[in-house]
């Protein structure tokens, strides 16, 4: 009864709106009904703008964001990240570690079906494992699977892996998209997975089925009505490839797309007018990438941590965030993603304090003899080049602001912006740099062995700044070798404390992700992990549906 009355009210409100001359704008009436309960409904098409085309439809082989997003809809893993970035079961019913953390046994759900109707079993999991470790599979996600010593199918719904040594990321690694054995098996042995028909017509177990990919134009998915977690509400998803941020923004204004990521300036300045606020909901949460100001620690001038601490004091992080990103970022205190279980902010902080910076540098021997330039005892000025990659305005601005702040304490710097591939090849890998402005994307797991362990300093490895600290080495080893979160927390908290003290990099900020979603879409509940974790529960109330879903 009450539902009926409300619906009527909506329709009346809709009619008024029409007469008032803003007929297209149905969202104005959402506000009135939003206070009460809106009934979820199936259907409608959800249009998402993506700046890059997908590169393939077997996500295990791709490494770009768009392909992963589409892949996540079509394929599922054994586990998935929940709203708080903890791993919970997806196609697995449960899992169990042996006491020594070496044996991991998975129990799989029995009600999962591939999009072609075939049942999903442990053989598919085994197959995916074999695909991942096959030397002929060009995938960037091999490492965690190569750590498996032995894998076996115990029965159709039980799968067990044995690790040579404990691997903390073991659970997370099984969020890998599981591939259908019955369709792909014959392509894997010859390394022809990419050429299989499923790479253009994928079959998965996920919430959405593949319908169409028009290269450079769009990808269309339709809801999987037999999805084991229940039929998703939104009937159709269209990913429209729009390679220009300005065009995406205009399409948003014209309501041509329902979801897009904004730039900081669009978010802060260009969308604060009533019509936009009515048509879209803006969201904001920390992304999983941070920007840093790093040094070549093999350079004797940067070897003393007081120098790095001085730089941390000389840079005003708040000013950077305001100036470069309109305040849409969070100060980074270390390399762990805020909001995850391993994160702590109880570490040494460096407030903006040029005097303290100068004092610290003076302790090391850099003194100002009255001309405003810091010199060592031989009179050589403290000057170096800050390098960053081309095509990233944000980093260039960061470098410029840092240049100015360092100039204020008497450190002279030059900025050099270099094309990405040459930058990596000529400067980073050969360690021919003094200071850099760059970023790291971090996963949900806190393990960052590759970046911080002293053994990882080779030309093709990730510890590019050359950081070596025995305590950190030990913490990283212990941290990745335990499968008990309570134990790992201790290691990673201590790890962050040491890094904050050492400042091997000046951690600047975690940029915010800034998606906007059409306000006709309901069921979005922002959480530390963002908004997308419950996409299959998003819906458009019947009266607000804009498209008929095919």
């Amino acid at each position, binding site marked *: 009864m009450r539902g009926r009355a409300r619906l009527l009210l909506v329709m009346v409100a809709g009619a008024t709106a029409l007469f008032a001359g803003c007929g297209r704008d149905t969202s104005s009436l959402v506000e009135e009904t939003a206070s009460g309960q809106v009934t979820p409904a199936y259907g409608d098409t959800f249009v998402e703008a993506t700046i890059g085309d997908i590169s393939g439809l077997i996500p295990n082989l791709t*490494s770009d964001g768009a392909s992963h997003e589409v892949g996540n809809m079509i394929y599922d893993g054994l586990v998935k990240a929940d709203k708080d970035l903890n791993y919970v079961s997806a196609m697995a019913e449960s899992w169990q570690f042996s006491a020594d953390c070496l044996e991991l046994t998975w129990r799989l759900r029995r009600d999962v079906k591939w999009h072609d109707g075939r049942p999903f079993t442990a053989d598919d999991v085994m197959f995916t494992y074999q695909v991942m470790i096959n030397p002929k599979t060009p995938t960037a996600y091999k490492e965690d699977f190569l750590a498996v010593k032995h894998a076996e199918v115990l029965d159709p719904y039980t799968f067990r892996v044995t690790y040579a040594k404990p691997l903390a990321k073991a659970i997370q690694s099984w969020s890998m998209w599981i591939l259908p054995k019955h369709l792909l098996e014959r392509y894997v042995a010859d390394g022809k997975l990419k050429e299989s028909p499923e790479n253009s017509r994928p079959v998965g177990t996920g919430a959405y089925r593949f319908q169409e990919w028009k290269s450079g134009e769009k990808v269309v998915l339709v809801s999987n009505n037999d999805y084991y977690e229940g039929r998703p509400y939104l009937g159709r998803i269209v990913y429209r490839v*729009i390679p220009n941020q300005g*065009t995406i923004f205009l399409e948003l204004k014209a309501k041509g797309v329902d979801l897009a990521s904004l730039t900081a300036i669009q978010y802060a300045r260009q969308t604060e007018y009533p019509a936009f606020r009515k048509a879209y909901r803006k969201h904001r949460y920390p992304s999983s990438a941070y920007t840093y100001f790093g040094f070549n620690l093999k350079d004797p001038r940067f070897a003393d941590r007081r120098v790095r601490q001085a730089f941390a004091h000389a840079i005003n992080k708040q000013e950077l965030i305001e100036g470069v990103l309109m305040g849409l970022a969070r100060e980074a205190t270390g390399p762990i993603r805020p909001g995850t279980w391993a994160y702590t902010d109880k570490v040494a902080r460096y407030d903006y304090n040029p005097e303290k910076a100068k004092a610290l540098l003076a302790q090391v021997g850099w003194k100002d003899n009255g001309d405003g330039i810091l010199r060592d005892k031989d009179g050589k000025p403290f000057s170096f080049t800050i390098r960053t990659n081309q095509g990233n305005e944000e980093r260039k601005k960061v470098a410029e602001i840092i240049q100015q702040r360092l100039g204020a304490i008497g450190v002279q710097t030059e900025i050099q912006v270099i094309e990405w591939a040459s930058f990596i090849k000529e400067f980073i890998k050969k360690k021919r740099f003094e200071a850099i402005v760059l970023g790291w994307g971090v996963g949900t797991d806190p393990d960052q062995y590759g970046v911080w362990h002293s053994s990882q300093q*080779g030309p093709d490895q990730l510890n590019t700044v050359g950081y070596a600290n025995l305590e950190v080495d030990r913490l990283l080893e212990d941290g990745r070798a335990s499968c008990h979160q309570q134990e790992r927390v201790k290691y990673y908290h201590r790890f962050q404390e040491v890094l904050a003290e050492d400042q091997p990099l000046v951690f600047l900020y975690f940029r915010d992700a800034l998606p906007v979603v059409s306000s006709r879409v309901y069921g979005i509940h922002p959480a530390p992990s963002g908004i997308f974790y419950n996409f299959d529960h998003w819906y458009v109330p019947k009266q607000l549906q804009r498209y008929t879903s095919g």
Partner: protein
Amino acid sequence: MLLFALRRLLLAIPLLIGITFVSFIVIHLAPGEPIPGAEEDISRQLPKEVVEKIRELYGLDKPLYVQYWNWLSRVARLDFGKSFQPDGRPVLTKISERLPVTLFLNVVELIIIVALAVPIGVLSATRQYSMFDKVTTLFVFVGFATPDFWLALLLMILFGVQLGWLPISGLRSLNWEYLSFWKQQWDFLSHLVLPIAVATFGGLAGLSRYMRQSMLETVRQDYVQTARAKGLSEQAVIAKHALRNALLPVVTVLGLSLPGLIGGSVIIESIFAIPGMGQLMVQGVFARDYPLIMGNLVIVATLTLFANLFADIVYGLVDPRIRLGGRRRRR
């Protein structure tokens, strides 16, 4: 004439091989590799052995001349290979998906440009320094100087967002499949209006100025004077005697713009979200997708050579002075 064409055709083969050789070396000299994984993301890194394995898989571990030879011998059999990108589809398939759109857009643009530029050029030349001449000169130079992307955005804001008359981007509406046949055509056309308008406006200046210049030179020739002297109407003088001759250099310019027809404009394609050749090529370059880049280059190079040859032949056919030039000199 036939012998001339045949000789040029044969000469084109070593030239084409030379072009591919130089391009092959150059794109391999550029740093970067078609290896999966993002350099900047800790969670997506490949162990060294795996990188080597993938290099081996793609044949990138062999010396460059061996790689080139392998590539050339495959292309000789018209096998352009498969894309290095994760979709792994044949290069020719990828190109053939994108080519029609770009070709269609560019041909339409070219036709409109010619249809507008020739009259504009002729009229400004015959009425040199008139109001019409001054206004069109201003207009085409504004078009020449206006940045494509800026004009595109302005038009999109006006016609797409404010007035809502035209779609902003893409080639088809999302409900295209559900429209009737004629509505589909209309939908497609309405998506083309803005990109074609922007490209035409930018391209008009060059050709119309060329036409004007060539016409100005022609009307001062003795034979035009003669035509006037024998009492022909001004219209006949211009249309029959002057225009034909004035068009000759314009034909050459047009011939040279033929290869550009399949290149595609990266700016227009990306701002209007049109899935054409320009974008395909850019994506290929960023991904260091060597087979795709090379496939694209071979097609563009072949077309350029053919267009040059074609322009020469047509020029010879149209202009007797060129065809008979050699003979006259001997006399």
